[in-house]
């Protein structure tokens, strides 16, 4: 009986150890390459290539406190717009990020429009900055 309990306890510990074991924390010694780090750095933006770099540019092109409308490159909230809108907040901190899909009236409040993968013509705005990833439009009147 004592022997059976002993082996059952060892088996329980072995099962817990095997289940709790996290192979990634061992494999990473081989995985940790510049490519892996680059992949992790862009992980939250992988569905929108260049978005992270574009928002970095927009941050450099704008000042704190400015109101930035996110251009609806994807016209529907659930089909891409929420993705690009939500990812603007962190990089564009201290600016006010405006949603123009659920609230189109926000165009009238915007100082600038950040258009990822687009160069739209918007009445009252003119393109003032351009990069390979998109354009920045600033209110002209």
């Amino acid at each position, binding site marked *: 009986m004592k022997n059976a309990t002993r082996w059952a306890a060892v088996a329980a510990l072995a099962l*817990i150890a095997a289940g709790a074991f996290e192979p990634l924390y061992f494999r990473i010694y081989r995985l940790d390459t510049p490519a892996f780090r680059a992949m992790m750095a862009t992980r939250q933006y992988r569905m929108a290539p260049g978005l992270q770099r574009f928002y970095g540019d927009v941050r450099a092109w704008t000042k704190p406190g400015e109101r930035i409308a996110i251009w609806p490159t994807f016209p529907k909230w659930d089909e891409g717009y929420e993705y690009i809108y939500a990812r603007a907040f*962190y990089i564009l901190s201290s600016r006010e990020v405006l949603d123009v899909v659920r609230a189109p009236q926000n165009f009238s409040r915007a100082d600038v429009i950040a258009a990822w993968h687009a160069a739209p013509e918007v009445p009252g705005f003119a393109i003032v900055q351009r990069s390979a990833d998109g354009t920045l439009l600033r209110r002209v009147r």
Partner: protein
Amino acid sequence: MILFFIVVFALGVPASLLIDRDRSWIARVGESWYLGAGLVWASMMLFWSPFPLLVIALLLFRRRGTTHRLRLSVFDLTTLITIGGYALFATAAAPWEFDYLTDFGWKARTFFERGGIDWTFLRTHVDALPSFNPSYPVLLSSLYDAVALLSGEWNDRFLGLVHVAFGVAAICVVRAELAEESRFAALGTAIIAPLLLSPWIGMGDGPVGSLMFAAVLRLRRETSYAGAIFLGLAACVKQEGIAFVVAVAIAMLVTRPSSGLRPPSPRERGEGTPETPLPAARGEGGRRPGEGRLLLIAALIAVPWMIAARLHGVTGRTFHAHIADPRPLLGAIAHVSIGKPLMWSGILLGAILCWRALDRFLLVAVAAQFVFYVCAYLASSYDAEWHVAHSWERILSQITPILVFVIVSSLAKTLARLYYSSSTSEQWPLHP
């Protein structure tokens, strides 16, 4: 980043010596991190700088302590390799989780750029994004801000080290606790360690789980000021930490009905009779606070943020969607994967084997917290299936280490009893 860790430990070590004079060095390392992080947070809240409390701490606290020696084993090497791998993972890039970008990190960056807690920002962004919780306490965001203040600029590249520190602190505490009760401490720690290293870098789940874990490990056998402080700090990271204060109170009431929440008797304080002397309360010079007082300490740490948020008009969302019809939620929970089937099988087997020896206090605390999680889902206005699918595993990761600790420590004690009662330690080539 290095300066940040120096400041945290410069605050945490004196605080640890003040609270617990007598600890093993490994427990001292872990607990100093928690206390230092808590004091940095307090200093940020009060002065928006980590330095004022540092000056006070260095001037006031000159207490010396004793540290127990700890015998290391080959299994500690496994734990160290795991920690090293986790550190590489956590610092592979700036924190990448969505909730970092839209909550913890966003708040921290905004506060840093605006030179303090921006209540207007919190008040006016309630509906900005579903993942943004303005009423969440900001301990984690404040630590990010402390890093930025000390380096003079916002640089998020190595903020993952904060998460590594919380994981390592919990591992240090569990190593010290197991060493006091079992010869299988290193093995047990190596088993539990991966569960304490949260893969969600930039989110509050790792830090809150780490603090909850350390709190109940200190509170399970003794009434400990350190445990109460960790409990209060957990409540300053995420709402789940606040619920856990209540869960611990329930566990105290259920499993210690004889003492309830009253102060300890002279015998409980370590003042035993000459015939049956009791050991003095470990590390606190024989002074043991009542459990009610401990809960009060935890609440006093957690409540100021809630009051401040309320005074500034910062509120959370109103949730109530699934209460009337919980079936979709229960269906979603029934269909979600529990993950790690081997581990759960081991937990079940271990629970059957050691049922009588399981720590009831920890089990009740975990069970109560689990009920709170389900209640939170019931009150959520999000789609039940989506909400469960996106958070169930992460939320459960906060309490899983406690459950695993209960089973592993009981199994280790059982094994030690069986082996060492019938054989000599020489039969174990490796000291586990």
